[in-house]
């Protein structure tokens, strides 16, 4: 087998980065929710899907105003998340994990049919905005400006959330809640409100990701199930509850998948599942995780 050229490898690395950043955008919400609320939200993929569908809908209503549609879609998803948290999700915080998982799975089932009912089974599409239709050409490497935008936004969000958690009072409160919520409520913090905020922020991120990804791929029923497994792999590799772990996990996933296609085309799917298994066997708390796992 001929070895690919250096620029081909470079191109593959960039495409791996794009995949990684895209997934990170979605996974960040999942990681946040698990980190603080200790809830593994199977339905996170559904919020992602809803973000995409909302984006399409707002696009249709607002006559192709891309950025506004994305913003509204993300907000709508966040608001829906807040509503669902208030009514349903908060009942499950202290329940056994099996119940939590099965409950969130029930939400997946319900949302998938509701989406089908409202928008039908036809595939929907959203157009990229004019200013982002250009493609940068670096020798052999073709980088669409839209992909670059996704990479930039994901990085901005990553740093932004981190700064928020480290630097602001709100962030410190959120981190404290992850450690010891009883103590926190005794100190007078409205923990319920905090949980609501965090959950809806997580859903906002998922919706934002869905809305941003929409012009690149297809808006179709089933996109929720497709992504949730990738998300689980990422957060497990990086470490459940670790923010930078999720970032690292996304990079690893993206790169392994991308280079897998180049070097071991039959098995790139198998490779990521294998890495997940290896991490769980060797360092189950994940690369950057600190949980007790045995």
């Amino acid at each position: 087998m001929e070895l690919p050229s250096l620029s081909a490898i470079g191109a593959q690395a960039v495409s791996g980065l794009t995949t990684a950043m895209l997934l990170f955008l979605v996974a960040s919400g999942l990681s946040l929710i698990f980190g603080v609320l200790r809830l593994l939200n199977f339905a996170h993929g559904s919020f992602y899907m809803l973000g995409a569908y909302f984006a399409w809908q707002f696009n249709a209503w607002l006559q192709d105003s891309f950025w506004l549609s994305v913003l509204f879609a993300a907000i709508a998803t966040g608001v829906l998340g807040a509503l669902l948290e208030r009514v349903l999700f908060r009942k499950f915080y202290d329940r056994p994990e099996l119940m939590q998982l099965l409950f969130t799975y029930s939400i997946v089932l319900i949302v998938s049919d509701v989406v089908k009912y409202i928008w039908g089974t036809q595939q929907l599409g959203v157009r990229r905005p004019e200013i982002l239709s250009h493609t940068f050409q670096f020798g052999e490497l073709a980088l669409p400006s839209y992909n670059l935008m996704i990479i930039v936004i994901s990085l901005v969000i990553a740093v932004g959330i981190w700064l928020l958690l480290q630097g602001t009072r709100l962030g410190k409160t959120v981190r404290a809640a992850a450690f010891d919520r009883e103590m926190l409520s005794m100190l007078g913090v409205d923990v319920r409100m905090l949980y609501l905020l965090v959950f809806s922020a997580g859903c906002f991120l998922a919706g934002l990701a869905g809305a941003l990804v929409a012009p690149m791929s297809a808006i179709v029923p089933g996109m929720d199930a497709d992504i949730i497994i990738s998300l689980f792999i990422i957060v497990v590799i990086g470490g459940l509850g670790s923010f930078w772990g999720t970032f690292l996990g996304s990079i690893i996933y993206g790169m392994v998948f991308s280079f897998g296609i180049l070097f071991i085309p039959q098995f790139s799917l198998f490779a990521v599942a294998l890495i997940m298994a290896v991490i769980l066997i060797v360092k189950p708390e994940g690369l950057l995780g600190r949980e007790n796992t045995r």
Partner: protein
Amino acid sequence: MKTLDNKRNRLLMATALFLGLGAVPFFAPPFYVVFLNDALIIACLSMSLNLLVGYTGLISFGHAAYFGLGAYACGLLMKSAGLPFGVSLVAAGALGGFGAALAGFFCVRLNRVYFSMLTLAFSLIFWAICFRWNDLTGGDQGLSGIPYPNLTWISQMLGRPDFSSAQSYYLVSLVVVAICIAAMWIIVSSPVGLILRTIRENEQRSTFIGVETRRVKLAIFIVAGTIAGLAGGLFAIFNRGVYPDFMYWTKSAEILIMALFGGIGSFWGPAIGSLTLLLLHQETLAFTEYWSFALGIILLVLTLRFPSGLWGLFKRFTNTRRSK
């Protein structure tokens, strides 16, 4: 004295059930035979999962993988290698058990959500292998056209030469499933069953009383995997085909839901859950395509209000009656 009676009653009831089910092909229209065949296999599968979830507290997300491994083993041996049914079925159970041993060895070292994640990871690996090994497994398209074994000896033995392959095969399934259920019953009512429950309640404490929890967990994981493999082998022939779908995580989720719906706190719960959901699925699909929605609502209500499933409901009902 009383417990002996209870046991004898239970045995009698189980035998009656077995004979009753066995009589079905003689009287009922072919559709019921097919439906019950499906239900029997799935019930066996969800009961095998319950050994892990209900009795030992091990929430496996990848149980369908061993079902799938068994199905592929049986299907491949019967269709491509032309081996007889008995051999293929044993191989199915063996491959299921082997896969479970491989995965279980690593999984039982972890707890809670990490255990579940690793079972999921292993099921994805097994699935990816079947999916990509196109030449052997037929890849995404799977193996279709798996033949029925030669069962004319059954119809002759029963004096009913008019029996179709489907009807004779139903009886074979019934016998195999009954053996599996009997085995599971023996395990859970033995001291081993008590140990499993102890591990479920508090694993740390059970080590204090000298239980080798890891070994026990691995053992039950393998047993569950073997039975799942046998169910898979039965299903491969029943379905006349094997597809990688059988091992995908959505199938694992289905089995888990069935077990929960019936009640993971009891022996027969998952069987009842499987039968009920299969029935509901069929009837619902006849007039609407929104089965996911219906299942989601059922699951939602279940997790919110009735975590002990149908069996729990039944027990609550009979208890209130008795107290009157």
